[in-house]
C-alpha cells in the first residue's frame, strides 16, 4: 500500500478518537442513541480540526451494517467503503469544484432514488462555502425537506459565506481549535506508534506552530521526520521551523539602545546570510518591542509577556535602558514599516532603513525633558518679567476715570508686594504651590504675600473668608511646609489681616453709588478680567453684581 501522510494515516475512525471536539461528538452520539437523526448538518470550523473526519464517522454510524450505532464496527463493507471513499451510498462532493447550479440540479435528481444498499443516502458536501449563490438557492427546498432516506452533511471553514437560509435549515456544529495540550498528547501517541523520538518541548514547539489545527501539527511532525529522521532533536526542529534566534533579536535591540548602527546593520546581514525569513523576523522584533513596552508600563505584570526567564531578564534590562518616549517612537516606526517589509520581495533594505531611523529616535530629546525645559524657561521669563515690571508699573498711566488705585485688586497687590528683587515673588510661590495643590493656590491668590528674609507674610483683606481658613492649624501647617520647600530653608509664616483695615470703616461712610462704582473699577482692573479681554479681544458691555 502506498505511503500515507500522518494526517491521513491517523484520521480518526470513531467518535471516541476525535480529539478536542467533545461538544460535537457527544451531541452526535446521543442523538444517534436516541435515534433522532437530523436530515442536515453543518460543520464549521478552522482547517484541520476534524470536520471531514467527523462527517465520515457520522456516515459510518448511520450506515453501519451492525445497525444504527454510535460505535460503527469499521469491519462491515459499508464502513470499509466509507473509509476508502468508495461507498456507493455516501457521496462526498467537493463543493468547490462542483459549485454551479447544474451540479446541484443533478444532485436534486439523484436524491429522489432510494439508497442502493444501505440505510441512508448521505451527501457530504465539503468546502460548501464555494457554492455559487444560485447553487445555494437551488439547494434550499431539498435541504428543508429531503426524502427520509437522505442526510446532508455540509462542511466548511468559512461559515460566514453561507446564506442564512441554508444555515437555518441545518443543525450547526462549530468545531473548536484544538487546545495545545491535547495536540501534544495526540502527537505523543503518534510518535510512540511510529517509533519517533522527540522531546516534550519539541512537541510543544510543533503544537504551538499548528495554532490549534491537528492536521497542521501532523504535517509539521511529518516534515520533521523527513528532516531529521526518527530522532528529532529540539535544535533541528527549531531550524526547520525557522525559529527566530532570540539572541539575534536582543543583539539588535541592544544596538538600538546603544545607538550603534554597526550592530544593527551587521546583525541584519548575519540574519540574511543565515537565510532567516526576514518577514518573520520583522514580526518577532515587533513582538519584542511590544514586550518591552508592556514591561515598561507594568513591570510586575509578567503574565502578559510569554518569555523564558533569561529572555525576561533581558527584556527588563532593555526596558530600563530605553526611554518611554524613545520606545514608543521606535514601536511606531517599526509598526508603520509593516507594509513596506511584508509586501517587498526583498525586505532587507527596508529593515535596515527602519532600524537606522530608530537610531535617530535615540538622538531626539524625550518630550518629558523638553517640557521641563520649557517650564524652566517659562519660570525664568516670569521671574525676570515680574522683576522688571515692578519698577515701571506705578508709572504706567491708567486710563481709569475714577480715582481708586488698582491696589484694591488683591492680585495686583500681590504683584506689588512681591517686588523685592532678591527674594522670589509671591506669584512664584503661588505658581509653585499650584503645581501640587491648585485649590490651595487659589486661596492664596486672594492674599497679599510678602517674602522678606525668610519671613512670609500672607495678608488677607479683613473679613475675607480665606483668612479664617488659613488660620486653621492644619492649613497653617501646610502653608508652612509648602513655603519651606519652596524657599528651601526655614521660614516663618504669618497669616494676618491686611494692614489698612480702615478700608471697611471708610466703606461705611461711602454712598451706595460710590461703592458700586468702586466695585466696578475693581472688576475692571482685575488681572483675570484684563487677561480675558486681551485674549478674546473683547470689551465690557455691562457689569452686574453676582447673585449671592
Amino acid at each position, binding site marked *: 500500500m*502506498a*505511503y500515507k*501522510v500522518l494526517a*491521513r494515516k491517523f484520521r480518526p475512525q470513531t467518535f471516541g478518537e476525535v480529539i478536542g471536539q467533545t461538544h460535537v461528538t457527544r451531541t452526535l452520539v446521543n442523538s444517534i442513541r436516541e435515534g433522532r437523526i437530523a436530515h442536515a448538518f453543518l460543520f464549521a470550523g*478552522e*482547517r*484541520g480540526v476534524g470536520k*471531514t473526519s467527523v462527517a465520515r464517522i457520522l456516515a459510518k454510524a448511520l450506515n453501519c451494517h451492525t445497525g444504527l450505532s454510535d460505535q460503527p464496527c469499521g469491519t462491515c463493507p459499508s464502513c470499509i467503503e466509507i473509509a476508502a*471513499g468508495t461507498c456507493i451510498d455516501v457521496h*462526498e462532493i*467537493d463543493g*468547490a*469544484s462542483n*459549485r454551479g447550479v447544474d451540479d446541484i440540479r443533478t444532485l436534486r435528481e439523484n436524491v429522489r432514488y432510494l439508497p442502493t444498499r444501505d440505510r441512508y443516502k448521505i451527501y457530504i458536501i*465539503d*468546502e460548501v*462555502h*464555494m457554492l455559487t449563490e444560485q447553487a445555494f438557492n437551488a439547494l434550499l427546498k431539498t435541504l428543508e425537506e429531503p426524502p427520509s432516506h437522505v442526510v446532508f452533511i455540509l462542511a466548511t*471553514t468559512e461559515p460566514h459565506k453561507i446564506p442564512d437560509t441554508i444555515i437555518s435549515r441545518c443543525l450547526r456544529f462549530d468545531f473548536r481549535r484544538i487546545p495545545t495540550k491535547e495536540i501534544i498528547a495526540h502527537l505523543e501517541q503518534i510518535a510512540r506508534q511510529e517509533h519517533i523520538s522527540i522531546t516534550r518541548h519539541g512537541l510543544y514547539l510543533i503544537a504551538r506552530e499548528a495554532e490549534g*489545527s491537528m*492536521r*497542521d501539527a501532523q*504535517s509539521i511532525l*511529518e*516534515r520533521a*521526520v*523527513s*528532516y531529521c*529522521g526518527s530522532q528529532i532533536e529540539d535544535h533541528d526542529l527549531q531550524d526547520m521551523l*525557522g525559529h527566530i534566534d532570540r539572541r539575534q533579536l536582543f543583539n539588535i535591540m541592544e544596538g538600538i539602545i546603544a545607538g550603534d*548602527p*554597526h550592530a544593527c*546593520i*551587521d546583525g541584519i*546581514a548575519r540574519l540574511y*546570510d543565515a*537565510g532567516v*525569513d526576514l*518577514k518573520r523576523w520583522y514580526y518577532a522584533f515587533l513582538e519584542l518591542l511590544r514586550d518591552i513596552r508592556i514591561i515598561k508600563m507594568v513591570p510586575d505584570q509578567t503574565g502578559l509577556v510569554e518569555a523564558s526567564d533569561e529572555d525576561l531578564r533581558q527584556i527588563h534590562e532593555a526596558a530600563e535602558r530605553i526611554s518611554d518616549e524613545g520606545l514608543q517612537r521606535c514601536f511606531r516606526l517599526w509598526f508603520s514599516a509593516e*507594509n*513596506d517589509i*511584508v*509586501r*517587498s*520581495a*526583498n525586505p532587507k*533594505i*527596508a529593515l*535596515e*532603513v527602519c532600524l*537606522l*531611523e530608530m*537610531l*535617530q529616535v535615540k538622538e531626539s530629546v524625550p518630550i518629558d525633558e523638553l517640557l521641563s525645559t520649557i517650564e524652566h524657561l517659562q519660570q525664568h521669563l516670569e521671574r525676570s518679567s515680574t522683576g522688571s515690571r515692578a519698577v515701571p508699573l506705578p508709572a504706567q498711566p491708567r486710563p481709569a476715570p475714577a480715582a481708586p488705585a488698582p491696589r484694591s485688586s488683591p492680585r495686583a497687590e500681590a504683584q506689588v508686594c512681591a517686588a523685592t528683587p532678591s527674594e522670589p515673588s509671591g506669584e512664584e510661590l503661588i505658581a509653585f504651590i499650584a503645581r501640587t495643590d491648585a485649590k490651595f493656590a487659589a486661596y492664596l491668590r486672594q492674599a497679599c504675600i510678602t517674602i522678606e528674609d525668610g519671613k512670609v507674610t500672607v495678608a488677607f483683606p479683613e473679613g475675607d473668608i480665606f483668612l479664617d481658613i488659613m488660620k486653621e492649624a492644619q492649613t497653617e501647617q501646610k502653608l508652612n511646609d509648602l513655603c519651606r520647600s519652596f524657599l528651601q530653608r526655614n521660614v516663618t509664616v504669618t497669616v494676618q489681616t491686611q494692614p489698612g483695615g480702615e478700608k471697611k470703616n471708610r466703606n461705611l461712610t461711602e454712598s451706595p453709588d460710590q461703592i458700586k462704582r468702586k466695585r466696578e473699577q475693581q472688576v475692571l482692573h482685575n488681572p483675570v478680567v484684563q487677561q480675558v479681554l486681551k485674549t478674546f479681544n473683547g470689551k465690557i458691555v455691562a457689569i452686574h453684581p453676582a447673585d449671592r
Partner: protein
Amino acid sequence: MPFSEIFGHEQAISLLRQMIRSATIPHAFIFYGASGIGKKTSAFAFAKALNCPNMLDDFCSICTACCKIEQRVHPDILYLEPFENKNTIGIDQLREMQEQIAYRPFEGMWKVVIIDNADRLQTEAANSLLKTLEEPPDNTVIVLIATSIAGMLPTILSRCQQIRFLPLTSETIVDYLCSRVDACPEDATIIAQYAHGSIERALMLFDEEFINQRNKFIAMLSQETVLQPGASNDLIGKISKERQEAFALLDLLELWYRDLLLIKFGMGESKLLYNRDHINSLLKAEQHETVAGIIAKIRRIHTVQNTWNTNPDIQLALESILLQREVIHHAVAI
C-alpha cells in the same frame, strides 16, 4: 543533470531525497521562496528523480523518462501555469487536471502535478484544489510553487508539506555566473549583489550590460553640480523604455541611497556597502544629502517597487524619485 547540479538549496534537496529513499513521500508539497531561485527546476528534478528507473533518489538525465520530463512531454507530469494572456490559474485548468490524475500513471511510477504561481490561484480555483490536495489518488504528488505563502489559503497550506527555498548566497550566484555564462569574477560579484539571491535576476542583469549602465547611472547620481529639473529626463527617457531595465534601475537607486544612509551613520568603512567600488562617488554625494531626505527617497522607491505589479507608468515613477531629488537639492540651495 542530477540533483548535484542544482545550485544551492542543499537543505531542501536533501529533504526531498531523504523522502524518496525512505519511501515516505507526502502527496502534496508547496515550494516557496523568492522568484528565480530554482524552485521550478527543483520541482522538475524531483519529478525526474521519482520516475527515473536508473537511480533511486536521483536521476540520470539520459533515460527516456528523464528526457521526456526535460522536454515537458512526459504524460505523467502535469505542469500548470497561468495561460499566456492571463495572470492567474483558472478553475477550468484545475478541473482538467483533476480528471487526468484520476487515471493511474501511464509510463512512469508517479504522477506529478506541478502548479506554478500557486500563490496567484483564483479563490475558486484554490478552493477547488482543496479536496484533491487532501486525498489525491495513490502515486500522485502535487507540487505547488509560490513566491510567498503569506496570501495563500490556510486550508491549502495545512494540506501541504511546506518547503522553503532560501535566496541563493552571493557566492553561489558568482559561482553560477562564472561556470555557466562565462562572466568574469569582478562583474559576477557586482551582479550577485543586485540579484537578491536569484539566478534569474542575475542572468537578466548579465545580459543587459548592467555593469555599464550602473557606472553611467552612478556617475549621474554623484554629480557635484545641482541637477536642473529635466536634466535627468534624458536618462529616464532612455532607460524607461524597458520595464525590466527600469526595475533594475530602481534597485540601483535603492542600494545607492541605502549606502549613503550607512555612510551618514558613520559606516563608510563597512564591508556591507553595495557600491564599495564607487566609494569616492558615494562620499561626494553624501555631502548633498540629509538623513531625512535619504530615508524619504528610499521610502518612495519602496512604494514604487511594491506597486510595480499594478503596472505604474515607469517614466512617472522614476521621475517622482529623481525629481524629488532635484527639488531637495534646490531647497538646500535656497
